[in-house]
């Protein structure tokens, strides 16, 4: 079965086609939502941002030149929206949420047992990473973005993308070590 490409959908959206907008939304909203949620760490905020992100896509569709993949362009818009929202939020609120998230995991009785499970511990440590490190890990592993695409989304040189990813992974190892799991690296 053949599907209309994202690029074609965006060109139709530029012409005011609402159905094309619905198709593009159906195709990408879950991944964009998860990307935003991992950055803002608040479901209500992430859900609000999703409609803002796709509204921007509606408004800017005519400017999309197809030089990069549509998903890369959409994630760039999502990132900008998420960072703007984070800047608007008071610092205390952020700290509370971060603490809650970590406590939630730590207080869960199953978590203590699961700590022995390396996979669960790894996921817990992934959630503890800084925003910059979470972002790059997600873009590479979950959103399957190449070095060039990550550089475009985050707005940093390709060499920095590689070193940031390296340090994110190194930090992950440090967190794991604190939980008693030594990966023998770095």
């Amino acid at each position, binding site marked *: 079965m053949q599907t209309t490409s994202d690029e*074609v959908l965006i060109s139709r959206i530029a012409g*005011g086609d609402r159905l094309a907008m619905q198709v593009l939304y159906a195709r990408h*909203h879950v991944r964009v939502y998860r990307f935003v949620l991992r950055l803002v760490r608040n479901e209500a905020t992430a*859900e609000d941002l999703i409609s803002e992100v796709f509204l921007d896509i509606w408004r800017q569709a005519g400017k999309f030149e197809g030089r990069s993949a549509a998903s890369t362009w959409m994630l760039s818009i999502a990132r900008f929206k998420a960072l703007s929202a984070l800047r608007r939020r008071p610092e205390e609120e952020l700290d509370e949420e971060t603490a809650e998230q970590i406590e939630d995991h730590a207080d869960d009785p199953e978590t203590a047992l699961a700590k022995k499970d390396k996979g669960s511990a790894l*996921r817990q440590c*992934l959630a503890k990473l800084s925003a910059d490190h979470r972002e790059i890990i997600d873009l*590479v592993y979950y959103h399957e973005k190449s070095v060039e695409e990550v550089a475009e989304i985050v707005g940093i040189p390709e060499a920095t993308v590689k070193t940031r990813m390296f340090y994110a992974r190194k930090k992950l190892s440090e967190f794991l070590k604190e939980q008693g799991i030594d990966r023998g690296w770095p």
Partner: protein
Amino acid sequence: MNAMKQETPERQEIEELLPWHAAGTLSRRDAQRVEEALARDPELARRYALVRDELGETIHLNETLGAPSARALEKLFAKIDAEPARRQAPLNLGSRISEFFASLTPRTLALAGGAAVLAILVQAGFIAGVMLNETKTGGYQTASAPTTAADAGTFALIRFAPQASADDVTRFLESNKLSIASGPTAGGLYKVRVAVTGIPKAELARIVKKLQEDKVVGFIATTD
């Protein structure tokens, strides 16, 4: 400690690429370099296993994050409705071309490609014919030839069945003495010449009915 001793700029460079190798987003050339390095360096291969664990758990973590409620879509379209009415801008040439190709099925594309090759061959033959003719007469002649006019004859519109191969279509056209006059349109329709002269409507209906029975035909209709 042994591993530390073996650290080289080359290993460092390859190691930085491991996450992208695991995600399958490296260029073929870089992927080849990484594969070769993994095959000769057991320590790098061990670290690659760690990367693969991270990849799997990152996917797991993200997949448990859920999805936005339907409210987000409602909110989006409420905002779109509140936007100033947008003038239906005509698509630029690039978009129109990509839209056209996107609308074709792979089989239609293959058939269109075949038709294009045929058209080029006919044109080449025609030019060669004109040149030979010129050589013979040694003077200038117009490039018209005593052939059937493009709009002369009786036609039908055909859309070939999606499962029909190019060979099937060729066999069908030859066995029924048909020729493609134009097409395909964006909807995959071809204008096919059924007879070189005009024929009675009843006769055309009989021919069309017979052609419709062939499995190669997905849709057929008479046309002027």
